[in-house]
């Protein structure tokens, strides 16, 4: 699992509250990704990072923001959670210079927004 941890692993929150999910890696991988997984949709890319302080939007970025102040940490923030953001969130990393390499995934965070 390339030393990737996600916290928390489970969270229940209420609509309108802010939520921050953390991804931590110990492999010094340059690229990091946040996905959400929903039934019938597979995994969809929310945001990604190609270095410290370098981030960009993915396919489903509305309602989410990210920050990467250190190589090892990539934070995903829901500024004001909505029920449509109930999902399982996965973080992934990719080694540097690896256009044809494979991504390594964390164990996931199950978020429920009531």
């Amino acid at each position, binding site marked *: *699992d390339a030393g*990737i941890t996600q916290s928390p692993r489970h969270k229940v929150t209420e609509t309108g509250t802010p939520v921050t999910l953390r991804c931590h890696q110990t492999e010094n991988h340059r*690229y990091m990704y946040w*996905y959400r997984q929903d039934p*019938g*949709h*597979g*995994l*969809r*890319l929310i945001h*990604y990072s*190609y270095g410290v302080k370098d981030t960009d939007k*993915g*396919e489903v970025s509305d309602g989410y923001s990210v920050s990467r102040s250190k190589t090892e940490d990539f934070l995903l923030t829901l500024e004001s959670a909505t029920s449509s953001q109930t999902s399982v969130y*996965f973080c*992934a990393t*990719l080694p540097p210079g*690896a*256009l*044809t*390499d*494979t*991504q*390594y*995934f*964390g*164990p*996931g965070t199950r978020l429920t927004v009531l």
Partner: protein
Amino acid sequence: SQQGEEDPQALSIQEGENATMNCSYKTSINNLQWYRQNSGRGLVHLILIRSNEREKHSGRLRVTLDTSKKSSSLLITASRAADTASYFCATDSGNTGFQKLVFGTGTRLLVSP
């Protein structure tokens, strides 16, 4: 989005049988990857095939790629109960300077003892 479609959505077989799942995608790609996900876990990479390759093997896995039909198949031979999982294809268009994967919707495989 060039999200892939996988077929079948679910597959149930007996141990020892072969399992074949298919993936179709919409635009040209740099490579296609297959991942496995056990229930409640993260994804684990299985195999990567580049756009200039037609077939690739890894242990009991065989992947084919037909870029003219924009499709790929994953064959698991002599399946085991431990192969029970969801399988996802993911494509990388390779035109952004780094990897951005688009995942299919997955095939749920159940292998019964």
